């Protein structure tokens, strides 16, 4: 069974092989950054053993540092045995989860829309919508403790959902293509954010010239579980809960059945009495809400002051994460964790090697993984797998709307 899955290249196996191949290619790139290795290779013919040994040392050091930074550092384990902090063992993992949190949520936003046949490029704009509402509720409103947190998180969801709903509405009523609409709305939202952050009457912190919002109130912050920021907190639990909700919704609810039918065949959905346009509106509302939640976990969790650059690359990364997770909720969680680990590990390795291995290597790895996932034929050729029909890769490779 497992052998068959491997030789025929099931989608999980293909993803793992893609990651493996990306690490191999990334390793070769690391070699080029190391002057000791390049010097050893220049005298390859006189001492080939040295060249290979130096190469191995260099790559294994970089990747082991990455592992220590993102997952587990053995020295913290031995320290714990000699009276050190036990919690410190989990700091790397906790940082990874913290990094993964917003990625998982924007990934879910893209994934759920994708299952209903829509390509949500607009997670970035929806993120901004959620961030604006969550931030305003965070510093502008006084509410009792606990309730303040909850209201802000819900506000983030609503802020994103409103933008998503508008996209769905435009598509349903006018037939406008969601890709165009979401791309354009991203710019609208960026500029709206810039405007709001430039006026103290709006979101700008008083007595500031920079585009920056006030800190949100302490009682609106999401509590951290694994230590101080950037450690994981309640935000990560929200992301996992959202994934569980999406998984249930998609596979076990009538709404999800409706979404999936619309995504797989709008004409069959119509003939079965499903209101396709209404489904578009609802799924975009949900997708926007998830992107808004992503914003809430950031502005209430990891960095509690909204700036013009806060939206970072959460939107585009969400597309990548959803693609890697094959638009499945739990797949998206795993892909988000992988990307979170790469981010954390990349920063760590850059520090450990005094920037000789720059953290840009992580972006190269991410790009390679997605490239290989999107080109299943390449992976099959490299690992000599037999072709099968319908590994689920085609949809990912083909993009949206057939």
């Amino acid at each position, binding site marked *: 069974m497992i052998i068959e899955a491997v030789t025929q290249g099931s989608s999980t196996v293909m993803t793992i092989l893609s990651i493996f191949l990306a690490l191999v290619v990334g390793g070769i790139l690391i070699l080029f950054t190391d002057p000791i290795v390049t010097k050893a290779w220049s005298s390859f013919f006189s001492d080939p053993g040295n060249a290979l040994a130096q190469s191995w040392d260099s790559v294994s050091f970089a990747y082991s540092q990455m592992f220590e930074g993102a997952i587990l550092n053995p020295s913290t384990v031995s320290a714990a045995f000699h009276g050190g902090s036990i919690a410190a063992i989990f700091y790397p993992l906790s940082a990874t989860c913290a990094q993964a949190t917003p990625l998982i949520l924007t990934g879910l936003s893209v994934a759920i829309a994708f299952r209903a046949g829509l390509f949500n490029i607009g997670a970035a704009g929806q993120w901004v919508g959620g961030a604006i509402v969550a931030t305003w509720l965070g510093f502008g409103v006084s509410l009792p403790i606990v309730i303040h947190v909850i209201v802000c998180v819900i506000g983030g969801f609503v802020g994103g959902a409103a933008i998503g709903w508008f996209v769905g509405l435009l598509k349903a009523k006018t037939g406008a293509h969601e890709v165009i609409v979401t791309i354009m709305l991203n710019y609208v939202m960026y500029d709206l954010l810039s405007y709001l952050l430039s006026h103290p009457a709006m979101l700008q912190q008083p007595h500031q010239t920079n585009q920056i919002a006030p800190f949100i109130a302490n009682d609106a912050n999401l509590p951290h579980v694994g230590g101080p920021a950037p450690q994981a907190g309640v935000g990560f639990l929200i992301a996992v809960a959202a994934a569980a909700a999406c998984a249930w919704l998609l596979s*076990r609810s009538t709404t999800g059945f409706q979404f999936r039918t619309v995504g797989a065949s709008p*004409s*069959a959905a*119509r*003939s*079965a009495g*499903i209101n396709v346009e209404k489904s578009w509106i609802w799924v975009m509302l949900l997708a926007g809400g998830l992107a808004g939640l992503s914003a809430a976990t950031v502005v209430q969790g990891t960095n509690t002051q909204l700036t013009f650059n806060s939206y970072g690359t959460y939107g585009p990364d969400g597309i990548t994460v959803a693609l890697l997770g094959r638009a499945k909720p739990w797949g998206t969680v795993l892909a988000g964790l992988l990307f979170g680990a790469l981010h954390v590990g990349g920063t760590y390795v850059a520090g450990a090697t005094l920037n000789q291995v720059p953290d840009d290597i992580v972006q190269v790895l991410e790009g390679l993984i997605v490239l290989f996932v999107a080109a299943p034929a390449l992976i099959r050729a490299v690992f000599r797998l037999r072709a099968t029909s319908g590994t689920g890769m085609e949809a990912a490779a083909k993009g949206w709307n057939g």
Partner: protein
Amino acid sequence: MKLELREITKRFGSLVANDHIDLVVQPGEIRALLGENGAGKTTLMNVLYGLIQPDEGEILIDNEPVHIRSPKDAIRAGIGMVHQHFMLVPVFTVAENVTLGVERTRGFGGLLDRKRTRSDVLELSEQFGLQVNPDALVGELPVGIQQRVEIIKALLRDANTLVLDEPTAVLTPGETEDLFRIMRSLREGGRSIVFISHKLKEVQAIADNITIIRRGQVVGERPPSTTGAELAALMVGRAVQLRVSKEPAKPAGVRLTVHNLTVADERGEPAVRGVSFEVRGGEILGIAGVQGNGQTELCEALLGLRPSSGTVSLDGNDLSAATTRDRLRAGIGYVPEDRQEDGLVGAFSVADNMVLDVYDRPPYASGIALNLDQIKTAATELVSEYDVRTSSVQTPVGTLSGGNQQKVIVARELSRDNKMLLASQPTRGLDVGSIEFVHKQIVAQRDRGVAVVIVSSELDEIYALSDRIAVMYEGRIVGFREPDISEADLGLLMAGSSAEAESRSVQDALPPDQALELPGAVEGDDAE
């Protein structure tokens, strides 16, 4: 050119798709290859065309063994193939399409010789009565003419043997007649033809010899004079009822009333023009007509998939303003014309497809939660009750054969408590065994008191099922008849009127847009 296939064997894993098949096609012969879906016809032709290499056996042309390793070799050997799905560039003209890959050039630098291409096309078109305009854009031509473009493509590459893979599946009865005329003139020109089909009548009408294959083996060779029953029995492996036996209808009160229904097509032109009819419970109304006379739009309007004016009521409830969902809930069962597009979601499992339009109702859902166990149980029961051949209810429905896909739709739509059943082309593309099954199920619905409407362009189907026949022509119902009307008279009605029918041959020679402007049929001008 004499073509001979000897002992061709092709295995896919444990499945033997072709088991020592022998086939001889004499020069100037139309050889029919008759078999059910999945009998191995297409595999055999792919072997002949070099798309698949056989495990055993050889191909001989004029008694000389040839090796065909690719379509290129096949073309060089004089074999031409017209696939079910055409390989044409829609934005190119006919001449450009047929010359693609064998471009005629002149002068230095290989300038395209358009003039010669045009004259080549015209010459072939004239020689075999194909009537194709070399300058027409392929995308704007009807399917029947596109098929002729494919034939010209093969002829231009000097094909002596033409393989036509299920060529009539996409054609209207009129277009089929035209194709047969062309096939005869090709035969007279010394070309031989392999005609692949599972339709008995067509095979009997056009073939010189019929080879029947079943489960990868040749089970017999018969002349076209063989009875349909014998051919069907050979094909399916058991005796088949070509026409289901049914008791006379016992119609009760009127259930479905359609009054003055008018529907527009995509371009806003009226496709259905003021149609009125009634269907009683326990009665099958067959709507006959050549494809494209408003039947598709009529069905979609009855389901609420397309805006319409006029009224539709079922058991006295006015459904004119109801959504599709409400109409389905009001008790309409719907078997759509295009099962893959409208009836099923190919990527979904058989079980999911079994509840495609009832997934949100008890017992399959409680609140917004799906009842997966219940869905699975119900699907398992339906699969065995309707004899759907699938390895499990979790199998994606898109991997089933056409007949089994249709059984999934029929099972879903007939297992409900229907007041009315609307089935459009319910057996299109199915083999005789599946047709028999679907027909029996439809008659069973009638006998349970359901008002049944069947839309079909196949006369056989209309006769087999109908208790009453309505004929549609240019968006109107031009007459209601009893099922004892002769096929000739029905055919004339479908063509509009007797006068209209006589002028058909004239119309065919004209480009389609001009033909449309001829005066339409007058209502009630029937041919009895």
